[in-house]
């Protein structure tokens, strides 16, 4: 399994523990990920304006890069990048006239032919590797650990980009169960964390985070596993604000699902990056004798 | 092209379905609406009967314009006849261009049985338009004597 890989900015900085754990897990499972040589910003959010083609140039350049290296599939890990690139690729597929305009605009480049498929890492794990194969690689099962998966918005919405049932996704649950953990069904797992409002409205995020964490806790979760760096920031770092605002609020560790995978697969501890979280997961993991 | 006030009176054939456009024309009559007398009606049960060659025949026989009046979409007495007429007209417009006939000389209108006003109006509009276009001269025509 060989893929062209687009990391995006945040995986190289804030979320380097996501990237390192993804790469380690991928290596273990035989997924070859070749980073695009000259990647640029994806634009972070897909422009929903019908009259705003300029904003599609950033994702187009990336798809073009993938085409240049001969990739059929472009593997994305960050869910915001995934959403932007997937929506852009679908737009080019559905509205060839727009693609043509952009191709003409980028006249010193090759034309993008509209054939690169954007896939998310979770999709590869579920459809290409298979949940059973993941289970086989587990050497240190996360037995007894109660984990609530959290999906956020951009993997599931809009409907066209969703590779799982938008209202009731299960892919992270399936992986957690394969790792030996208890997957806690939380209906708020598809609720929004407040996203970019975190920059100028962190009060709201403090509320959202509290609601989501309390819902997971009330169902017996001890930690939340997620996949989006922005959700991670809001649910993890913004717990600081929740603590400030609500005296009855108790923090909960937030981890990337890939960190748990790496842990369960017995991969060298340097790549976990547990120290990067606001809420330290290590006491909990120690309790279960996982570290 | 000749000016419209040259006294030219175009000859027009109007194919009307009897359920909608024909009934609309009846209503125009009962309401005594006055309109241009250029079009001679030929009645069908349904515009679905409109063989494209009828339109070509009319042009070769000296018609300056051909009008087709059918039921509004969804109202066809025979369910889908008017859709067939529409498809044929779209094709005919392309064919007419090939023959050097201005496709504006062919006009399809949906006229319901209650639209006497509309029938009179489109008759006037179409006659005026054909007047403006002038007689159909580009064809070697042998007018029926």
């Amino acid at each position, binding site marked *: 399994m060989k893929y062209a890989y687009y990391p995006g900015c945040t995986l190289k900085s804030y979320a380097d523990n996501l990237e390192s754990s993804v790469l380690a897990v991928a290596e273990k499972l035989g997924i070859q990920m070749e980073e695009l040589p000259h990647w640029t910003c994806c634009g*972070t959010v897909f422009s929903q*304006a019908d009259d705003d083609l300029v904003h599609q140039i950033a994702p187009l350049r990336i798809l073009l890069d993938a085409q240049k290296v001969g990739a059929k599939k472009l593997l994305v890990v960050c869910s915001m990048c995934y959403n932007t690139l997937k929506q852009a690729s679908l737009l080019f597929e559905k509205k060839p006239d727009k693609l043509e305009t952009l191709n003409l605009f980028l006249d010193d480049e090759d034309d993008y032919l509209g054939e690169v498929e954007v896939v998310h890492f979770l999709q590869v794990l579920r459809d290409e590797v298979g949940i059973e194969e993941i289970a086989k690689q587990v050497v240190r099962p996360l037995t007894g650990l109660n984990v609530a998966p959290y999906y956020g918005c951009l993997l599931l919405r809009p409907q066209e980009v969703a590779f799982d049932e938008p*209202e009731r996704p299960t892919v992270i649950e399936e992986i957690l169960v394969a790792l030996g953990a208890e997957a806690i069904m939380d209906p708020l797992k598809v609720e929004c964390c407040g996203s*970019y409002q975190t*920059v*100028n409205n962190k009060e709201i995020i403090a509320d959202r985070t509290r609601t989501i964490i309390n819902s997971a806790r009330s169902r017996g979760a001890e930690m939340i596993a997620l996949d989006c*760096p922005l959700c991670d920031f809001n649910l993890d*770092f913004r717990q600081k604000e929740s603590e400030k605002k609500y005296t009855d609020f108790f923090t909960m560790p937030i981890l990337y699902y890939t960190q748990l995978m790496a842990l369960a697969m017995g991969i060298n501890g340097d790549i976990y990056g547990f120290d990067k979280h606001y809420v330290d997961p290590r006491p909990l993991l120690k309790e279960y004798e996982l570290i | 092209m000749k000016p419209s006030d040259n006294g030219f009176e175009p000859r027009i054939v109007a194919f009307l379905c009897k359920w909608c456009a024909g009934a609309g024309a009846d209503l125009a009559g009962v309401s005594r609406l006055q309109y241009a007398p250029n079009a001679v009606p030929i009645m069908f049960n349904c515009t679905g009967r409109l063989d494209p060659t009828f339109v070509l025949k009319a042009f070769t026989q000296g018609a300056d314009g051909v009008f087709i009046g059918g039921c509004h979409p969804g109202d066809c007495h025979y369910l889908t006849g008017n859709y067939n007429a529409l498809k044929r007209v779209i094709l005919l417009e392309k064919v007419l261009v090939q023959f050097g006939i201005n496709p504006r000389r062919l006009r399809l209108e949906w006229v319901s049985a209650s639209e006497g006003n509309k029938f009179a109006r489109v008759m006037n509009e179409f006659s005026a338009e054909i007047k403006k276009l002038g007689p159909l001269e580009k064809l070697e025509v042998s007018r029926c004597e």
Partner: protein
Amino acid sequence: MRIILKGSKVKSKLTEKVEKISGQNIFACYQCGKCSAGCPMIDSMDYMPNQAMKLLQMGAAEEIINSKTMWMCASCHTCSVRCPRDIDLSAVMEALRLIYLRTNVNKVEPSQIPEEELKDLPQIALVCNFRKMTR
């Protein structure tokens, strides 16, 4: 305050612009309120999303352009996936933001964000926010 309706107002330029930018038919909304019922940000909005749609139908440009609603929207698409009329409400909100931003003003001034906040915030949050809130 009473909103004075007239034909010229209902056929509002703003609504027309929103429809053009978003590609959505504002008048398709039949006001079931499902968007509002599921909206995660609604507690911070002055008009609920369905009310914003109604104001757009009425052509109440003032009310809508001065409203907080579109700025509180987090583009989570929950409304869009559940709308029974298949309206992409998220795109409507984007259009409203753009109409404001295209007058060349910022909603969020990047230079005003405190230094220590900037230190913490991941790029993804900043770029995302500026894409939505600045010109």
